[in-house]
């Protein structure tokens, strides 16, 4: 029989792996093997390391991460579908000294919220965006996303995404990098520990960009959806490496000269 022991303060003192202060003490609703949990964890660690937990307002999207606000121990608001960058703009413009970030999926950011994200970048809003790209609509049950790959089977492209009638995937990091207001736009992946470490460094950099007032910052994270891809979690990680990275190459798409000077 497994006995669950709540860790004592003393145990936490000696622990090498604890829940970040920036997290609330609840379990998430995410499916087993989904990398939303990894992305949340990285943000939580960055907020802890920067000591900004009590100075931060998050903006949650519509999609699987609609309840992100339950998991972060910071002030949080829940936006309408795709409008998180507009809502973040409203918050940041009246609270310029606070750290404001949005957390958005591909349906939210790259489809219905295309106008809001492009113009937030064009205006150089001093906000940070964490963009989860898993090439599918998770919450509504696996429909085609703007980032679904050609030929990819989803519940709304049952014969595979036909580019003749359903178009091509949208590469957001590449497009956003064209905006003069963007200071930092990169794409990372969460499919293995080495890439997760790189993703964390990018998230830290993106928050530092905001703290330094160097414009819009966005980290696109290639992520898994084992449930709606119909794969085991391990196979899903492999699918990111084999299929998503070739379609969405990892890299730094925009690092302004001022951002390149940031030290932390």
């Amino acid at each position, binding site marked *: 029989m497994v006995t669950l022991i709540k860790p004592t303060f003393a145990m936490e003192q000696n622990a090498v792996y604890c829940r970040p202060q920036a997290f*609330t003490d609840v379990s998430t609703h995410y499916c087993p093997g989904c990398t939303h949990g990894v992305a949340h964890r990285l943000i939580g660690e960055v907020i802890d390391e920067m000591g900004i937990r*009590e*100075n*931060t*307002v998050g*903006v*949650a999207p519509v999609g699987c991460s*609609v309840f992100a*606000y*339950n998991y*972060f*121990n*910071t*002030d*949080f*608001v*829940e*936006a*309408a579908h795709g*409008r998180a960058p*507009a*809502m*973040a*703009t*409203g*918050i940041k*413009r*009246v*609270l310029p000294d*606070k*750290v404001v970030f949005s957390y958005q999926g591909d349906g939210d950011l790259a489809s219905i919220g295309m*106008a*809001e994200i*492009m*113009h937030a970048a064009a*205006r150089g809003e001093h906000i940070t965006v964490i963009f989860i790209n898993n090439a599918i609509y998770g919450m509504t049950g696996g429909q085609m996303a703007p980032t679904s790959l050609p030929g990819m089977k989803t519940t709304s492209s049952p014969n595979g995404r036909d580019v003749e009638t359903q178009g091509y995937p949208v590469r957001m990091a590449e497009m956003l990098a064209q905006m003069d207001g963007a200071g930092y736009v990169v794409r990372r992946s969460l499919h293995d520990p080495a890439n997760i470490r790189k993703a964390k460094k990018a998230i830290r950099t993106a928050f530092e960009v905001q703290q330094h007032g160097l414009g819009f910052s966005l980290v696109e994270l290639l992520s898994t959806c084992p449930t709606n891809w119909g794969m085991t979690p391990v196979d899903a990680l492999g699918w990111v490496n084999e299929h998503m990275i070739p379609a969405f190459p990892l890299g730094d798409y925009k690092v302004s000269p001022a951002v390149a000077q940031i030290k932390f």
Partner: protein
Amino acid sequence: MARELIKGNVAMAESAIRYGLEAYFGYPITPQTELLEHLAKRMPELGRAFVQAESEVAAINMVYGAACTGVRVMTSSSSPGVSLMSEGISYIAGTEIPAVLINVMRGGPGLGNIAPAQSDYNQAVRGGGHGDYRNIVLAPASVQEAIDLVGLSFDLAEKYRTIAMILADGSIGQMMEPAELPEMRPIQRKDPEWATNGNPNRPRRQLTSIYLEPHDEEITNLRLLKRWQDIQTNEVRYKEYYLDDADYVIVGFGTAGRIALSAVRAARAKGIKVGLLRPITLSPFPVAVMDELSQRAKAFLVVEMNTGQMLDDVRMAVRGRAPIEFYGRPGGVVPFPDEIMSEIERMTHAKLNSQTDPRMAWLERALAR
């Protein structure tokens, strides 16, 4: 402050500044654009937030974000733009936070035209967006009243954590008249107990409009309705003109109400006992005074710059106790006092019937004209 000749749109913008507006997000659309233009100049020079958004959808969601922090925030638009804002209006209502919205109405539906109209009455007083909620809706009939109602709208929005909408029309927005602006009030930034303003040394706060458990949403809907009951009890506002001995009662709001007042004065000069009820709060609708008038008036005449939208609220308040007539000029056409005078005279001579559908009876007359 001295009275000055000032345009309605500019007056509402400057009034908002003086009543403590901290952030404005908007998108250009005729006939309200001067409002945005005035704030584009004034807000930055005062160190306050101004963003010309990429769309009305973005503008209202910027308002939503800023409103979550507890500051005084506003947007303005005109009819088609307000339709686009309906999404955000619903979310703001569902999140129970204060915001002010000015709709300088034009002719519709669709792209319509840029002439003054009152065609968004139903959209405004029934909420406009999806879901079960109501907005406070205030209708000015002059530039001065528009100035005053901007201040009131902020107070009411904050008191009840709700949306307060100023429902003006193109003529209020475009007209210049002498008016007095309030003194500049210092910004008093508050920290309401619900505001997600990222302040330290307290438990985290969240604002959301999602209640996945139906019973929680039901409780929210009932809480909103209870708050609305308080608003109905406390916040009804209207103006009465010549109603003490009136046999006939005209009901009109905003510009239509003001034009009707000219007709009432002309009719009084001819010895006709007619008065005017001009609702200022369209929502909550002044039901109690309508109830009282229903018991003593010989007949009502509803005058609107649409095809009879407030008419339905009047009919619900009168409940068949007196005949109701309707006169409307939709599509951006503004009625002359003479037209309303003719309706008053027709009403005093006609054999009126409380069973007739006033809108359809009017339509027949309008098509025959």
